[in-house]
């Protein structure tokens, strides 16, 4: 027991450092959750027992809160079971993926996966969230800089960083919901200290700067995502739609089109009711469907990439 006592952390910071070390290699989002839970709890405990020294409180923590190793094990175990429960069942097409039919099934299977559609949503709204984040960040940074000659500059900057962290947290939740990339379940605990300390913490915390970078990057990325998605959707739906039109017309259906109107298709201008028009229109529809499917694959991939970018910049293992 005495050996254990000697190893017990004496301050909250030491406890947090040991917990971080015990969680080394785990998902950064899980680490951020665990550290923030522990810090909040330990601070509350110290506040509730304000007559005792931090060392005395920390001394009894091993029995009540659990040692860093115990707590780390609890997080890893819970996360493993939760992830296993929430993860989709193993893909049934894994076994057939090697055969050509399997490849085709996998290619078109993208329609049945909810991730495709949520990624599509994420990319489509990314332009608008990007504009929002970019505006807030540029406005906050330039106002902080402008106000820095006045005493109000510092609290304004701290407030702005608080807002930007909150936005980063909300964005993280959105990204997890849409792409499945595990992000922190709660925002990091605010440190309980005076202005100078808080400012120092903010300036020395790498996540402050990566969050700002993410929010600035959100606009150009949003423009790219939105353009790719809209162009892909418009082209493929356009091909399918016009192909349908020409097909129905070639089969003799009266669509109210000018009978003299000859639509140029794949470089030739077939007679509206000719066999050639029918064949070419079917080719167009097939191309449209393939293009749409490929677009959805691209969208899924972009969604995954966006999840990774968000995780790299918004979550820090050293939070």
């Amino acid at each position: 027991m005495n050996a254990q006592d000697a190893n017990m952390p004496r301050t909250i910071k030491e406890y947090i450092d040991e917990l971080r070390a015990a969680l080394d290699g785990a998902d950064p989002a899980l680490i951020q959750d665990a550290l923030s839970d522990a810090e909040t709890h330990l601070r509350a405990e110290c506040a509730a027992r304000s007559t005792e020294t931090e060392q005395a409180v920390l001394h009894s923590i091993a029995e009540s809160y659990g040692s860093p190793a115990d707590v780390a094990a609890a997080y890893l175990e819970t996360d493993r079971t939760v992830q296993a429960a929430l993860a989709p069942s193993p893909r049934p097409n894994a076994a057939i993926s090697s055969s050509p039919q399997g490849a085709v099934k996998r290619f078109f299977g993208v329609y049945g996966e909810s991730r495709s559609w949520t990624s599509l949503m994420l990319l489509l709204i990314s332009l608008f969230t990007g504009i929002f984040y970019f505006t807030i960040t540029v406005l906050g940074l330039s106002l902080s800089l402008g106000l820095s000659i006045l005493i109000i500059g510092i609290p304004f900057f701290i407030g702005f960083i608080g807002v930007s962290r909150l936005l980063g947290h909300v964005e993280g939740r959105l990204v997890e919901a849409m792409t499945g990339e595990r992000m922190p379940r709660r925002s990091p605990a605010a440190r309980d200290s005076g202005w100078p300390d808080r400012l120092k913490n903010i300036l020395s915390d790498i996540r402050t700067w990566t969050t700002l970078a993410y929010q600035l990057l959100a606009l150009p990325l949003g423009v790219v995502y939105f353009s790719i998605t809209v162009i892909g959707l418009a082209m493929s739906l356009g091909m399918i739609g016009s192909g349908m039109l020409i097909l129905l017309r070639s089969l003799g259906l009266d669509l109210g089109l000018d009978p003299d109107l000859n639509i140029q298709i794949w470089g030739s201008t077939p007679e509206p009711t000719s066999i050639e028009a029918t064949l070419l229109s079917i080719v167009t529809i097939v191309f449209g469907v393939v293009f749409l499917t490929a677009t959805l694959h691209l969208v899924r991939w972009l969604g995954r990439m966006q999840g990774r970018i968000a995780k790299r910049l918004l979550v820090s293992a050293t939070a």
Partner: protein
Amino acid sequence: MSELARKFQRDLNAGLVALVLLGVLAESDEDLYGYDIAKRLQRAREGDPLFKEGTIYPVLRSLAASGWLSSRIVPSYSGPPRRYYRITEEGRAVLTEWRSVWRATRDFVDQFTGPSPLTESSPTDV
């Protein structure tokens, strides 16, 4: 408690922590935050706690992720913001089911291990 007993306790706790947390929140009229729940559990038992306070946080979060608890963050005057939890209707349904599983398990296990003299005299035994 010996190391062996501790390990047995940990294994038992795997599902019980979630059951107890759902129970605490279902009994409570108000929303509770992690620290508050930890202290209630501590007060409810004299001596060694059955599980470490640090282990309730990941379970709370996983219960919330399953939709059995809802949560909101409230700024606190005395420290970092607190996350308050409340049990959802879905959570109550799960609790009802789990409770009957737990009762059946407990009764079954008791048949073979025999209730100890302590629990026999306990008035809270249902």
